[in-house]
């Protein structure tokens, strides 16, 4: 990795939202709403402008020198670790900061309308700005420990925002669940980091041992711990990016205000795990085992979550499980070594899923905070812009050409196919499920008769421009957003792919080597190379796989269209199905799905309650109270009382007397011992 050109303005990308947080957080209700909103939106928009500057500056550099750095200070100068605080923009983090600040600005703007009547207006923007700050630290960090600071920071903000309406105990409980579940992941993250630190400390000089540049420069030192560290870091990613087994917090996180769901729990924070794995690509390419686990876990998560999404009746829950499912796709991409494609899906998904959430928010806003789709229906005519934009997003997530989701999802499935057709089959099935549950969501929300009560019905309205405008921008992005990765077999140049190439140069070098050795003999081996190395890529596109790409793309497209059509037909024709929101499967399978496979219950009874019981009844009430205090401490006290009434004397308040005699005793003993010893 290039050591980077200094760019001191990077710190302002991070600082602007922090300043916004400080202003809104400290002055809070003393500020007029207009000022709170201006500060909240303005600080993120400012960061966006700076991010664009960083991007342009980066683009002007030769491809292999595209790194901007801003060294801040020496954070933990201890021994051989010397952890620094420094920021870095390379093509990967450039994508992420544009995403975070760009989509972030839109969502902040939308929130001005959505939260207009809320008591905690300033507090909301304070938290939201703090989140953007932490997220930017996460993606700009030039070292793993600093990334972890952002990682925990976004977790904190997620906690605060899920429980934003904390008067409702369910909301704050959901926040707590999110934080604690993520802590399990953090435990893995930290251990993974320790394994790496141990290998590097003292081996790579004094500076910033856990810096990405340092680590990437010494992949051979990481090789012995690649699998264990890779798996532990991935455990961290399953927390933040809601994968099996730690995905359970994300659906509950929908308790937060909808803009929060859009920003944190769809577009940005939950993709942090994918980002981290892509960032650590030089570690992961060295471990087949960890990569395999990531691919399988990602795929399974995609499947499980998509099936649960089929039967949810809360509009946000459908989208939440959909997010879990899509994150599974991204993990799958990373698992098969296609890091750039994973990041591609992070970007496109951010556009259409943020749009879907904001659209859902618009609906919820109109429905007086009703989220159950069984009470919706027929909103198409009342909320034309919400409907149109969400429809675009639906086409995008379903993977219809030429909407954004088509390109990224298709490429993931293609890469999965190259690794193993079995991965493709499951991924393909998930695509079918995706289109189906989205069609169900759209029909139950926008088509047919409105099923709300009369009062709600009379107040139905389209949202104000400040909310619909961000929807429109995101709708445009949901169309054109995928074009940055227009594949070569369709006559494009796959710009994103080449843009990200330098970041995955380690993969390239590794891959090129492999390619050099086997000279394209083994398709499977070359797959790892294909993603990052242009040479390897050319090898593929030049070969017979262009046909495969075409076939797979057509298959993807037809299943998307077919499944959409099927879903629309089923739910528009059979209103009773729509009103009940279920019955399509019926019976036991439906109970299993609507019960979310009872995983929450399993965790509750197998882990949480036993630990609570052990702590309360065994450790505290028995070991502490009975054994130590009862038997030992009071036993000794009673013993003393027996022999000398010491305790009685003390209880009479004669401690002073005791202390004096104690002091005298000390001196007497001293004198005696001195005589004897001397």
């Amino acid at each position, binding site marked *: 990795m290039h050591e980077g050109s200094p760019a001191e303005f990077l710190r302002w990308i991070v600082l602007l939202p922090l300043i916004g947080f400080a202003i809104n957080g400290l002055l809070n209700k003393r500020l007029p709403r207009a000022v709170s909103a201006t500060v909240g939106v303005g600080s993120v928009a400012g960061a966006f402008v700076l991010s664009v500057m960083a991007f342009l500056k980066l683009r002007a550099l030769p491809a292999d020198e595209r790194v901007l750095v801003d060294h801040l200070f020496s954070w933990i100068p201890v021994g051989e670790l010397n952890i620094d605080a420094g920021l870095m923009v390379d093509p990967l983090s450039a994508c992420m900061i544009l995403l975070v600040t760009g989509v972030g600005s839109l969502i902040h703007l939308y929130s001005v309308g959505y939260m207009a009547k809320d008591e905690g207006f300033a507090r909301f923007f304070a938290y939201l700005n703090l989140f953007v700050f932490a997220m930017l630290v996460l993606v700009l960090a030039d070292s793993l420990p600093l990334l972890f600071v952002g990682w925990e920071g976004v977790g904190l903000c997620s906690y605060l925002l899920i429980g934003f309406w*904390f008067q409702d105990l369910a909301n704050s409980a959901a926040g707590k669940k999110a934080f604690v579940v993520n802590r399990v992941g953090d435990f893995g993250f930290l251990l993974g980091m320790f394994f790496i630190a141990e290998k590097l*400390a003292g081996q790579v000089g004094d500076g910033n041992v856990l810096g990405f540049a340092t680590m990437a420069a010494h992949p051979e030192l990481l090789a012995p711990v690649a699998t264990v560290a890779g798996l532990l870091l991935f455990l961290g990613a399953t927390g933040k990016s809601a994968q099996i087994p730690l995905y359970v917090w994300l659906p509950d996180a929908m308790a937060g205000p909808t803009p929060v769901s859009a920003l944190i729990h769809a577009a940005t924070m939950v993709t942090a795990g994918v980002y981290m794995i892509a960032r650590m690509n030089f570690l992961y390419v060295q471990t087949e085992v960890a990569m395999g686990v990531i691919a399988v876990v990602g795929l399974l998560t995609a499947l499980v979550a998509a099936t649960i999404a089929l039967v949810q009746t809360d509009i946000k829950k459908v989208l939440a499980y959909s997010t879990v499912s899509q994150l599974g796709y991204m993990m799958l991409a990373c698992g098969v070594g296609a890091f750039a494609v994973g990041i591609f899906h992070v970007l496109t998904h951010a556009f259409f899923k943020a749009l879907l959430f904001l659209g859902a928010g618009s609906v919820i806003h109109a429905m007086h905070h009703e989220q159950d789709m069984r009470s919706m229906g027929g909103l198409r005519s009342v909320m034309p812009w919400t409907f149109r934009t969400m429809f675009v997003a639906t086409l995008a997530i379903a993977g219809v050409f030429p909407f954004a989701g088509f390109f990224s999802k298709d490429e993931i499935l293609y890469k999965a196919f190259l690794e193993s057709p079995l991965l493709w089959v499951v991924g393909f099935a998930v695509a079918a499920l995706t289109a189906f549950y989205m069609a169900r969501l759209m029909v139950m929300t926008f088509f047919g008769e409105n099923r709300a009560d009369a009062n709600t019905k009379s107040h139905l309205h389209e949202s104000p421009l400040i909310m619909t405008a961000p929807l429109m921008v995101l709708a445009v992005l949901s169309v054109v957003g995928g074009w940055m990765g227009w594949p070569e077999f369709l006559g494009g140049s796959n710009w994103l792919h080449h843009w990200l190439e330098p970041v995955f140069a380690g993969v390239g070098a590794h891959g090129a080597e492999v390619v050099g050795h086997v000279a394209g003999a083994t398709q499977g081996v070359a797959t790892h190379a294909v993603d990052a190395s242009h040479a390897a890529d050319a090898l593929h596109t030049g070969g017979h796989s262009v046909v495969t790409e075409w076939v797979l793309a057509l298959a993807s497209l037809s299943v998307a269209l077919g499944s959409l059509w099927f879903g629309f037909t089923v739910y528009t024709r059979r209103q009773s199905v729509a009103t009940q929101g279920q019955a399509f499967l019926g019976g036991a399978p439906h109970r299993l799905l609507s019960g979310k496979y009872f995983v929450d219950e399993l965790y509750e009874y197998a882990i949480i309650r036993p630990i609570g019981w052990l702590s309360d009844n065994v*450790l505290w009430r028995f070991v502490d109270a009975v054994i130590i205090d009862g038997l030992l401490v009071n036993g000794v006290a009673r013993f003393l009382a027996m022999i000398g009434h010491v305790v009685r004397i003390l209880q009479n308040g004669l401690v002073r007397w005791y202390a004096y005699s104690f002091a005298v005793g000390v001196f007497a003993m001293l004198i005696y011992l001195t005589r004897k010893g001397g």
Partner: protein
Amino acid sequence: MLALESGGGSSLLTWMTFLPLVGAIVITLLPGKARELHRTVALVTAAGPLVLAVKLFTSFDRGTADIQLWQQVAWIPSFNIQYFVGVDGISVTMILLTAFLSFLCIVASWNIDKHTKGYFALFLLLETGMMGVFIALDFFLFYVFWEIMLLPMYFLIGVWGGPRREYAAIKFFLYTLAGSVLMLLAMIALYLNVQDPATGGHTFNMLHMMNQANHGSWLLNPDIRHVLFLGLFIGFAIKVPIFPFHTWLPDAHVEAPTAVSVILAGVLLKMGTYGILRICYPMLPDAAAWFSYPLAILGAINIIYGACCAMAQTDMKKLVAYSSVSHMGYVLLGLAVFNEAGMTGAVLQMFNHGTITAMMFLMVGVIYDRAHHREINGFGGLGMVMPRYTSMFSLALFAALGLPGLSGFVGEALVFVGAFEVYRTVTIISGLGIIIGAAYVLWMLQRVFLGPLNEKYTELPEITTRELVSVVPIAVLVILFGVYPPPLINMIKQSLLHLIAQIPA
């Protein structure tokens, strides 16, 4: 062994230590009704050491492990006992913590109305005792200061405490006394078997005791060294407190008035680990290495056991008390591994736990003053009526659960990094503490501050300016040393490196 900084000679430490004692004497001479005067005198005489401590912290030479600002005067010549004081980086860190918290505790004690004369006089006496422990370089002097702390603490709990104060005070007293006896015996054994290189006689000089060349033949027997180490260690372990010597802590905390809890958890617990660092390790380094693994295991037990017990509590103060047991486990784990990361983490954790737990106890005190109870389940929704108080308490709680960016994280993470290289399994098990830690902290936060507002407390007044004055400075340090810890790290670096070099591998 540590060397004295050449040039030497300064009375700054003596001033710092005995100013509070002067204040205490002045207060006892004042009429009993003059409450405002008692408070003011206490505030002024506690401000002195704080100013001097800040001066010490900023002017201390961080480039050397030598003892600085030392002062050596004969005290009881017949036993070769000296008034010998001086500081290294570790003691300076602890002195800053002590002076800082003592001062803020006087502010936090402003609403004490019962026998203000006795309260503030004892409080200042306590400060003198604590300061003395951290500057003493003569073991006998160390012991005297150690015992001086004991009495004011006993009375502060026993007179100004809660309903079961007598029981708690006696339990505290007996436990600590047991520790003192062990320390005393070990001290005498060292006294008799360490030679003063100048005179050839016995000596309490701690620097002489640290120099293995001065150890007599009886003291060279490894078994004896192990027994001595154990005696000293248990003496200090009771103060830390290390499982299974910890049960005095929850009782003492529950009954103690707020400011006393702050000092107890913030400073007194550190005396234990400071003793290990200042006495056990440098005087018996080989025994320290020999006990390394058991120490690490005890650290892990403290972490997990304390966290689990904290989860089971329904009294806020007891929860914070058990969280201290857990957090002091990190210190012990870091001390057990004798490498730079672990030891640095341990000392940082000593300082940071001092500030964070002080914040938590002050915050519990605020709500206790209003609601007159501390039942976690007896509140609910306080975030609605006391938003500023809620933010401040949340800050303390998130620092306690080790959120990066706040000071608690740095120490914990370094302890883990250091311990991981040496005792992998123990460290991994200890790491589970960060999950349980999050659980008990957030569960309490939820039950007290979130959810629907408890109807009884709709009129609860927001945190007052005086209360904020006592806690905001701590919050500033918690954030400052979380974002930028180098001032602390560099302060202790040379002293720790010097100590680590003494310990046989």
